[in-house]
């Protein structure tokens, strides 16, 4: 076996084309509906985005770990539908507030970007 580089390799972007900084918002949104485990979150994002965003564990699990320490989600070990133990994440009040704020910010930004792009089209 060859020796693998242990440091993050900058050439392999973990968040598959996911717009920078939006992963956390998507996770928050997903968890706003119900508590979920890691794979459930990934699957839900992939399904809702109709396969546009595919979140792999390499970016999802560190993001969840960061959000848990940040107090936006909390976790507990629970049995899954097929009776396995999994770590379920739940949105906290803090996370809910963050979601509202991020959504608003996102809306403002996309609206602005759209306007810029349309202005470009008209010109």
């Amino acid at each position, binding site marked *: 076996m060859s*020796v*693998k*580089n*242990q*440091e*993050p390799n900058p050439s*392999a972007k973990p968040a598959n084309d996911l717009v920078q900084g939006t992963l956390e918002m998507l996770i928050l949104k997903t968890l706003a509906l119900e508590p979920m*485990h*890691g*794979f*459930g979150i*990934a*699957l839900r994002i992939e399904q809702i985005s109709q396969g546009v965003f595919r979140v*792999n*564990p*390499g970016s999802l*699990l*560190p993001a969840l*770990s*960061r959000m848990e*320490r*940040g*107090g936006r989600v909390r976790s507990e070990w629970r049995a*899954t539908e*097929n009776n*396995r*133990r*999994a*770590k379920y994440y739940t949105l906290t009040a*803090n996370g809910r507030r963050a979601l509202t704020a991020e959504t608003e910010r996102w809306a403002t930004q996309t609206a602005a970007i759209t306007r810029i792009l349309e202005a470009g089209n008209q010109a």
Partner: protein
Amino acid sequence: MRQLKNLVHGLRSLINRQRANGEIDEEIDGFLEASAAHKQQNGMSPEQARHAALVEMGSRNTLKHRVWSVWWESAAENLLKDVQLGLRSLAKRPAFTLVALLSLALGIGANTAIFTLIQQVLLSELPVRSPNELVTLGDATNSGIAGGVDVGQYGFFPWYAARQLEANPGPFQGIASFGSFLAKVSVRLPGAAGASQQAQLAAAGLVSGNYFKVLGAHAFLGRTLSPADDSTPDTGAVVVVSFHYWQSVLSSDPAILGKTLTINGTPFEVVGVMPPGFEGLKIGLDLADVWTPSTMQTVILQKPSMLTPNSGLFFLNMFARLSPKAAADPHVRAQSQLWLEQQVHSMIRAGEGGTISAARQKEIEHETIPLVPASHGVSYLHDTYRQSLWVLMAVVVLVLLIACANLANFLLARAATRQREIATRLALGSSRARIVRQSLIETLILSLGGGILGLAFAFAATRALIAFVSEGNAWIALSPAPNATVLLFTLGMSLATGALFGIGPALAITRTAAQHSLSSSSRTAGGGRSKAARWWPKSLIVGQVMLSLLLLVTAGFFLQTLRNLQHQDFGFERNFLLLARFDARLAGYSPVQTAALHQRLIDRLSSIPGVQSVALAETPPISSGNWRSNISLSGYTPAPKENMNSVLNRVSGRYFETTGISIVSGRAISATDTANSLKVAVVNEALARRFFPKGNAIGQTLTIGIDSVKGPWQIVGIARDTKASNPRNEKPELMTYIPLAQIDAFLPADAAAPSAPKQENQDRYASFILLRTSGAPSARIADLRAAIASVDPHLPLIDVSTIGEDVARMMGKEELSSSLTSIFAVLALLLAAIGLFGVMNYNVAQRTNEMGVRLALGAQRQNVLWIVLREALLLLSLGAGLGLPLSWAASRYVRDQLFGLKADDPLTYAGALIVVSCVVLLSAWIPARRAAAINPVDALRYE
């Protein structure tokens, strides 16, 4: 709250790393399983699904690392790991670690020790309110009783002037005065049963009633003195004691207030105890035990009253508290000073009486009273040790720099040998930052370890230094225990040291390693070191040569100064003289009784076998005592306001014979000069030369400005000049000796009140017994004590010393600075030698291969030797080329402290250069010889 949770979480996962790790693993496993199950549902085979899930995840370890590293505890863990790694790597090289720790401990310890002294002697402020507002009026370090000076001159004030300024402080918040010296008094404790109880000696200070108030000091128990205590002469028998005295002598008696201390036979009521650490404004080697109002002067000093408007005796120092504005603004302060000077000028004018000549008017106008900042208190220690301490501080910083250069060099050499290891680690994905950090942590472990050892070393060193400085007196003003400031200083010093010797090598490690592949052999790795990497060790050597030279030159200066001082002619016998201080007043002798006592003492002591001659005197040959006065001489007309001051001494017959002070012309004072014969005096050469340059001093009459010993005295002899207090004094003091036996028993009758009873003359006492012995003087001490006890068992001997001890004490400061500088210079040289040897050795080892090739190609061994030595010589000459001018430039900071040699003394520079050259060449020669002796075949196989 969230932070707290984060902290608890982090700590839990740090403590139970296994569990935290297991949870991450379980979550990943769960994810993979769920992902694979999902893929299987979508039609993949179980194998394929599992494989695809694994590929999506990427490296499991990387993922775990990424999850782990978002937590703060991962940083802490990395740090811990680096510390462990650093400790392990240091433990693997015990020799290096030991040398590094020791040199750092010595360097940092020396810095801490000197800083502790600087902080306590020079930097610490008085424990009173706003000490920065305190100023002394003139130079208050002068102590004694002066006569025939102007108000405020030499920092001396008479009582009436002090009283006026205290009552009307003008723009100052307050002005107060204190006796310029402490008096030794006998104290009988409260409850002592009558006279049978042995009296104890204590140091008493006279202070004005507002002294404590102006100083801004409060009592620990009871109250301080108040102006009411100090209102009229010979009233106010109250006393405030120091905390130390209360604790050690009064056994911390909580009910001491209101009790009575009997001081010199007069009862004083204890009204207060001062807090610990309060020592008054003036700090000398003796600490004040008790303070009493100035009005009790006759009791405390056992001298006639100086509290009269025309006593003409100046025995007080004064200080003032500036207004906050004046403390902050030099202009306002100048105005305050102007006001003060005007007050003093009018006092001087009032004192002159009659009409004042224009010249004298002008002179009075020019009298200035500088306001000297006194926030650190008044202490001759400041002045004596200030320069020495700063020079020492500079020296120890240089020593530490040399130690740093050494360690930097060792680490650089090690960085070169670690290139392969570093290259491997970089290839394995370690980041450069991590490697640099790890290397820095190693150096910090060394420097902090060195700092901790240094503190221990400093504690011991400071204790020794304080013992030296305090000259064996019970000294509590200095403490070797490091306080917060010192600890902070040491910590800062350690960190700075670590950074200084660590950052360069740490960066060099990755810089060089990054450029080399794993495949390069040690030879190419060594040979191909970047220019910077080869340049650094050499410049460090040049720097060390430079600094060592500087230190050696400084040490040379101080050693020669010390030798010159010790070997100079003091003008008196320095070997066979025993001195004893006694006080007949404390044993109850009145001035009239002294003549008989003195005669009995001389007779009894002369009969001690091994004693050649005996004399009594007010002051011994070495003394900082200040019995001085202005004098007037027949046949000499002083210029207006010429300084006619002379140091006085009253001596018994055979004083000159006993002390070995030779008489250069005329005759000495002898036993035949009695109360009934012509009053005679002996003056020293300096006085004779100054006033009678034609050599006609003998036969002139001399009158002293103190009524009790006014004279006239006929000069019968001229004695050699002596060095009485400062061994550096190039200009001897003017001295007048008069016979003890010829001092009148009573003061001359007051012309104003001829019917008043005659007052006894307090200036008839002698304070010192001097014995000229034929053998070692210390062998006669027991006989001396026995003899005195046989004359009068109640006569207290205050201390006994040999003249050798007195000379050593006078030389103390000189020895301190020169021996410490020399010790540090030798230490620095030793460190530099270790460093030079290490680096040279390493360089030669790196070039072993090259040497082998040269030898194999037919080079002579001398050539090889020369190649190595040439490099050393080059570095040496560079270092010397920089170091000699640097030393020359630095020498002007010590110029004032030299004695008997100049700051450009060529021998000192040459000597230092020779020593440094020998060290450099020797440390190059040893490895060079080894290199030259190498077998070419071995050398080529060296890889």
